[in-house]
């Protein structure tokens, strides 16, 4: 089973839920696909064995091979290539590596060179967790490529938990795609509800079944439950609001570290999810 943990809003407790669930049911495989702000390692404390570069092929102009090629620069919709006088300028941060420019230039004037956009770290973390975490290079905009590289490294034979980026955009879609189930973490505020709606639309597009975890519950707002009932979306767990838990999570402690009672509850959650596949 591949289980994705997503959530519309940032800071909602996705990583806390994903790492706690992984620990309680270990040894599982854990994928950190929140590559812009990867935090799973603070909870799982992996010992990194291998760091692999994630690169995309961007063009480099070889002056000595031929003339500048304005057609290639015109073709580039991303403004990553410009023909200036006798030279061609490449802006690798803007390049999406579609490869179009190579097709338009006479043989050899543009050559593809690897441009690093991030890394994938592989490790064994506590409780025998197989950890694979992506990290986007600061300044790069190729979030989706790094997520794809993380997912390409997963061992499909193992049960997996994926920590997704926040929101409901393209990177989230890439992270959830191919999962058997998706847990949506939210909070009982109108913000939480607004962002949960966007997440639900994404699950409908991907045809991935989902369930909700309400974090910081017990404060009186019941908009989430009401909406979930209308949408037929099961609320599978609630984590009561607790300032001490917030402080523990800030120090990298999971739910199971904070209170061992969470171990049987999270095992049961996994069993419940399995009945919903």
């Amino acid at each position, binding site marked *: 089973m591949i289980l994705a943990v997503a959530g519309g809003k940032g800071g909602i407790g996705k990583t806390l839920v994903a790492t706690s669930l992984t620990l309680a049911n270990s040894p599982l495989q854990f994928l950190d696909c929140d590559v812009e702000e990867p935090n799973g390692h603070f909870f799982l404390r992996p010992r990194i064995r291998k760091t692999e570069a994630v690169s995309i092929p961007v063009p480099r102009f070889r002056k000595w091979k031929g003339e500048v090629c304005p057609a290639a620069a015109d073709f580039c919709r991303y403004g990553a290539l410009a023909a200036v006088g006798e030279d061609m300028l490449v802006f690798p941060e803007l390049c999406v590596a579609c490869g179009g420019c190579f097709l338009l230039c006479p043989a050899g004037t543009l050559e593809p060179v690897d441009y690093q956009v991030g890394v994938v770290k592989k490790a064994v973390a506590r409780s025998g967790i197989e950890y694979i975490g992506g990290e986007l290079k600061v300044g790069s905009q190729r979030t989706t490529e790094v997520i794809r590289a993380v997912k390409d490294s997963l061992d499909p034979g193992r049960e997996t938990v994926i920590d997704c980026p926040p929101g409901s955009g393209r990177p989230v879609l890439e992270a959830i795609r191919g999962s058997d189930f998706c847990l949506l973490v939210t909070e009982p505020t109108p913000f939480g509800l*607004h962002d949960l709606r966007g997440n639900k639309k994404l699950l409908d597009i991907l045809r991935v079944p989902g369930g909700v975890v309400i974090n910081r519950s017990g404060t009186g707002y019941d908009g989430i439950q009401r909406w979930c009932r209308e949408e037929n979306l099961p609320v599978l767990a609630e984590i009561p609001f607790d300032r001490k838990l917030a402080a523990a999570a800030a120090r990298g402690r999971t739910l199971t570290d904070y209170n061992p009672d969470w171990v049987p509850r999270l095992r049961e959650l996994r069993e419940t999810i399995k009945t919903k596949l």
Partner: protein
Amino acid sequence: MKQLVIISGKGGTGKTSLAACFTALEKENGTAPVVVDCDVDAANLHLLLGGETVATASFSGPELAVIDRGRVADREKCETSCRFGAISGLEVDPFLCVGCGVCGLVCGEGAVRMEKREAGTIYDRNTPYGKLFHAELEPGRPGFGGLITALRTRGEEEALRRPGSLLLIDGSPGIGCQVIASLTGCDLALVVTEPGKGAFHDFERIYQLLRFFGMKTRIVINRSDLDRSLLRETERYCFSHDLEIAGRIPFNDIFRQAAVAGRPAVELGDEKLNSLIRGIYQNVRSAL
């Protein structure tokens, strides 16, 4: 026109809550600001500022390749041309296609045309505190950067029509495309962080990005009393990098109550919190 962007690295640190407070305080000071919610993936500021939508505009994102199957002579060439694996069985997956146009380039039969596609909606809203532009992106769609630039352009046009008005930008979490698009060209970036291992790591990453752009920066530490040693870690980092801390806000329930009430937190009447937020606002305003 001055532009202030509020960002965070890690999500959920209180950007939007603070942005709403700044909006209310700016109005109180005389000139209604123009506000742009660039967190298009989780646009929540309108829930705090209220008001009503006065106009909407659709926004087109990257184009989509549309293939006329009957005219394709070499199916394999067509499918393998796409580096994103978006073409399968001569069907284009709209979620994988980035609109680069390479399939059209390799097609000798002219079977591919690039179509405009709607990526989201821009809302023009009148709130009791000033103008707000926000957007809703179609789920799963790429093209944040373009949408944010379009939103900011709307905001800039509006701010230029209102002399002396501040352009206030609520950014998105992360360090990627949408964040870069929200902060380029701003006069000051206010980073909202909190004591926490994850939050600190994300703060370091966002600061690297800000330094890369040479941006003037101020820091707010929210939930500052959550953990003393983690607070020290953030403070030490700020001191050693000459980063000015505009203020600290202790853990409180007011931001949550404000979200439920749908109002800026400074209107909820907590005197202690109000004077803290006012202090932060004045620090930031005088640095602009």
